């Protein structure tokens, strides 16, 4: 990544406090198109808060977030009006939750779940929507024959993959992921990580990934930001940071990973 290429998402001086608790202290971040940025840190370090501020879901006390739209216009995320922000969230952005049940409609078939974003954007041809949903199901390794099954008949790993299909169906340029592999067993995790890595590389999607799992960050991320109590203590290329950590907290984090 060259830093003179135009960024997709930039944040400058983000600060946020919940009463006496500082969640973010003057955080800067940059994300280039097609790049995966991991935000790591322990619980309560402000990772998820940062994700919510970057995605416009939570207004910061200070600072700005800029996003480059597909028409190359820069948009100030927190100055956007609600309809525009919601339109952005269902077209050029995606959000993958830790718990797929938060995002999926559990009483709507898999095909309907994948098709919803298309229909929200104005797709009005049933056969096209169905074909698109079916191709996305096979893309995330779900048998297209299950297109009319309800999500509650799916396993945890399938639900997460269904959520990814539902998010990526509109070809977003930026996806926010909050612990996408949390709560899954190790073999399912590995398969899911493999899938995310493949899709992200193939579709050139930029990802902001929040995780407490260093191994996930190492596998997926190009760059990494290490957070501790609202501060970014170290940032850089993933291998650089993880192989040669400078900050004592990063050293602690890296050395505390269990190796089987």
């Amino acid at each position: 990544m060259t830093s003179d290429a135009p960024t997709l998402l930039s944040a400058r001086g983000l600060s946020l406090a919940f009463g006496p608790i500082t969640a973010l202290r003057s955080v800067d971040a940059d994300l280039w198109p097609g790049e995966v940025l991991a935000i790591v840190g322990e619980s309560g370090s402000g990772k998820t808060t940062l994700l919510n501020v970057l995605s416009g879901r939570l207004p910061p006390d200070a600072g700005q977030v800029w996003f480059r739209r597909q028409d190359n216009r820069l948009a100030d995320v927190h100055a956007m009006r609600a309809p525009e922000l919601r339109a952005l969230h269902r077209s050029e952005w995606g959000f993958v939750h830790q718990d797929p049940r938060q995002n999926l409609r559990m009483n709507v078939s898999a095909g309907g779940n994948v098709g919803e974003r298309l229909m929200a954007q104005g797709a009005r041809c049933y056969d096209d929507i169905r074909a698109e949903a079916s191709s996305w199901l096979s893309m995330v390794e779900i048998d297209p024959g299950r297109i009319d099954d309800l999500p509650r008949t799916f396993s945890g790993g399938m639900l997460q993959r269904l959520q990814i299909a539902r998010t990526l169906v509109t070809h977003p340029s930026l996806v926010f992921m909050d612990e996408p592999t949390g709560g899954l067993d190790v073999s399912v995790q590995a398969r899911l990580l493999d899938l995310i890595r493949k899709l992200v590389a193939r579709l050139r999607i930029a990802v902001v990934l929040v995780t407490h799992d260093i191994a996930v960050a190492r596998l997926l991320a190009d760059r990494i930001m290490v957070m501790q109590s609202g501060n970014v203590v170290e940032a850089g290329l993933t291998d650089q940071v993880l192989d040669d950590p400078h900050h004592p907290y990063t050293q602690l984090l890296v050395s505390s990973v269990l190796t089987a």
Partner: protein
Amino acid sequence: MDGYNFAYLDEQTKRMIRRAILKAVAIPGHQVPFGSREMPLPYGWGTGGIQVTASILGAGDTLKVIDQGADDTTNAVSIRRFFARTAGVRTTTRTTEASVIQTRHRVPETRLREDQIIVYQVPQPEPLSRLEPSRVETRNMHALADYGLMHVKLYEDIARYGQVSISYDYPVMVNDRYLMAPSPIPAFDNPKLDRMPALQLFGAGREKRIYAVPPYTSVRSLDFTDHPFRATRAPHSCALCGATDSYLDEVVMDDRGRRMFVCSDTDHCTSRREVGHAGPESLPEAAE
């Protein structure tokens, strides 16, 4: 009329309802909250419609009330008599003679005119109510015109049954902006709402909402391009007047499976028989 204000409601209440109606007309399809009053009939019998009618009724108006298309059912008769007593207005069963028509679950077959107002009784004004339980969220969806969810429902129907399975209260887009519940009229009546010359007012008493479709406003039934909206009716002709284009009710005649189909719009059926149209069941009578 002694002991009552004109048309039962006090003037202050009528002014409040008229303000809600004006706002509703200004924003076609948008649900306007209003302070619904207790009326001397139970919820579900048309408390919303009756309040709207009471606020727009003038001494010179002629009122028609229909229930499922019929002028002679309990609900229709009671409401018609209620206004005859409390407002002293003329009442009629003729669609063409009425200036105000209050209706439950049907739109008259006769095309309405510019000088008429039709008032619908609405049990559930929120078209998204069965899909999204939170009213805060549905309000947001209306504000942001975020109606993908309604299409998901149609998609699910086609995936499961091969067609959209909504036969009444079929959701419509008003003026290409607001998603609206047309009240539980059969989907057959939906095309009549589109660009109707008469003013259409919708009152939901229990849910405390009023909404409106001004004259000549586009009302489009939701559909897919490859599964277009189709108005369906029972594939029969009316047993009394022989009409093949009207909406039919199925009437069970006995306990041996005999049934007949008759026009649900009684005025339409009567007018047709008066000018000589006849169906298979009316022939013996005509011979007498």
